[in-house]
């Protein structure tokens, strides 16, 4: 059981700056994120897209913003739990017991939800029957490529993941590559390699096709794919891989007894507290009258939620507002010399 003053859910820009604010006022915190990397939407959706409305930063990309926020956190030792999703939140006297999908347990008086639009999960195939084969013969990511050796594999998608795996797995397996249009959005070198393998007969390419249905009872036997012009082709296949990127899902947050409005959590504008004492929501996931989904709003919300955390984490101390320019205590925490 990990004891911490505050647990932050979400390692996007808002979660990162909130961690900074907590550390500045002398609280410790840990961060959980379902992605395998830090940065949230900034890293997952638009790492290369420039952002123009961060105060005092005329232009920076999602990746640069993330790196700057991490630089700012350098003086502090913050533990990140990546690839983990918070599943359960339960009241235990004046604390919250929190459990992740990997079984990590936290005990904390404060939970700050900075989860954007929820956790990122792979986009899945449309046909309903696909569910029963999921993680058996239908995969959305690859953990062990050895299971595909000498098998027939049907890969769907037109981006880097689909093409990288088509090229890689074609070394030891028979590959069907299926994509909804003729253009691919992958790196040119991979695209050239793929085309070469198609010519050599190592990859069977089907463009303007999508998955129509899957066949088999216990075991996946084959699939039907449908052309734009409604033509249907049946393919024998042992495995199906889908690479359609990630989607954001609110997920377990919906089950924690929080007051929700559509996919957002309702908060007050003093502490950014939800209807549950000690649970706050900041950034894109919170809503209140006048809410703007801007990164800068998330920073403000995190700063206020951090102050609110102080009361519950240090009930016998009084929080004193200080400036980083003048406070010796804060400078000590930052590890910088006082004048």
């Amino acid at each position, binding site marked *: 059981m990990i004891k911490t003053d505050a647990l932050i859910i979400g390692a996007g820009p808002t979660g990162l700056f909130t961690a900074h604010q907590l550390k500045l006022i002398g609280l410790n915190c840990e961060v959980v994120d379902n992605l395998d990397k830090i940065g949230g*939407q900034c890293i997952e*959706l*638009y790492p290369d*897209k420039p952002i123009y409305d961060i105060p005092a930063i005329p232009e920076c990309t999602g990746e640069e913003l993330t790196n700057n926020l991490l630089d700012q956190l350098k003086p502090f030792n913050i533990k990140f739990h990546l690839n983990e999703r918070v599943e359960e939140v339960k009241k235990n006297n004046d604390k919250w017991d929190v459990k992740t999908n990997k079984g990590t347990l936290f005990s904390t008086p404060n939970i700050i939800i900075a989860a954007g*639009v929820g956790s990122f999960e792979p*986009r899945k195939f*449309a046909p309903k029957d696909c569910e029963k084969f999921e993680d058996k013969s239908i995969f959305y990511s690859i953990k062990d490529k050895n299971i595909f050796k000498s098998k027939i594999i049907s890969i769907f*998608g*037109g*981006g880097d993941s689909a093409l990288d795996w088509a090229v890689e797995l074609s070394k030891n397996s028979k590959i069907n590559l299926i*994509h*909804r*249009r003729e*253009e691919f*959005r992958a790196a040119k070198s991979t695209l050239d390699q793929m085309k070469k393998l198609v010519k050599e007969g190592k990859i069977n390419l089907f463009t303007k096709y*999508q998955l129509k249905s899957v066949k088999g009872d216990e075991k996946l036997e084959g699939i039907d794919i449908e052309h*734009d012009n409604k033509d249907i082709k049946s393919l024998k296949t042992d495995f199906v891989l889908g690479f*359609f*990127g990630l*989607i*954001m*899902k609110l997920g377990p947050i919906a089950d924690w007894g929080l007051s929700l409005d559509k*996919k957002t959590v309702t908060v007050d504008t003093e502490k950014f507290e939800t209807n549950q004492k000690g649970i706050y929501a900041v950034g*894109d996931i919170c809503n209140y009258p006048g809410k703007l*989904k801007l990164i800068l709003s998330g920073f403000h919300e995190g700063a206020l939620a951090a102050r609110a955390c102080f009361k519950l984490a240090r009930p016998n101390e009084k929080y004193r507002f200080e400036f980083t320019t003048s406070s010796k205590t804060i400078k000590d925490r930052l590890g910088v010399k006082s004048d």
Partner: protein
Amino acid sequence: MTKIVYIEHSGKSHSIDVQNGLSVMEGAIQNNIPGIDADCGGSMACATCHVYVKEEWFNKLQKKDDGEEDMLDMAFEPSKFSRLSCQLIVTDELDGLEVQLPSKQA
């Protein structure tokens, strides 16, 4: 104001007056039309405002740029009449535009 017709997957139709300059996505969100999620808020980064445009309208729309076509690869059950509604800006020319919503966005 321009009339935009949103047809839910169930067939239920909503005829909405949308202010010119807004996107077809924003028109849906502001009027609580179910079936358009718009998770990323209109930055063409999520493909959850996916709509099917009625064939007679499809060719009258501004062409897709590459980024939109790439995002549509991610959409749920895309067709050749698929568009991202955040990229369709409402003008007088679109009066009466009909868009059909997919069974779900993801």
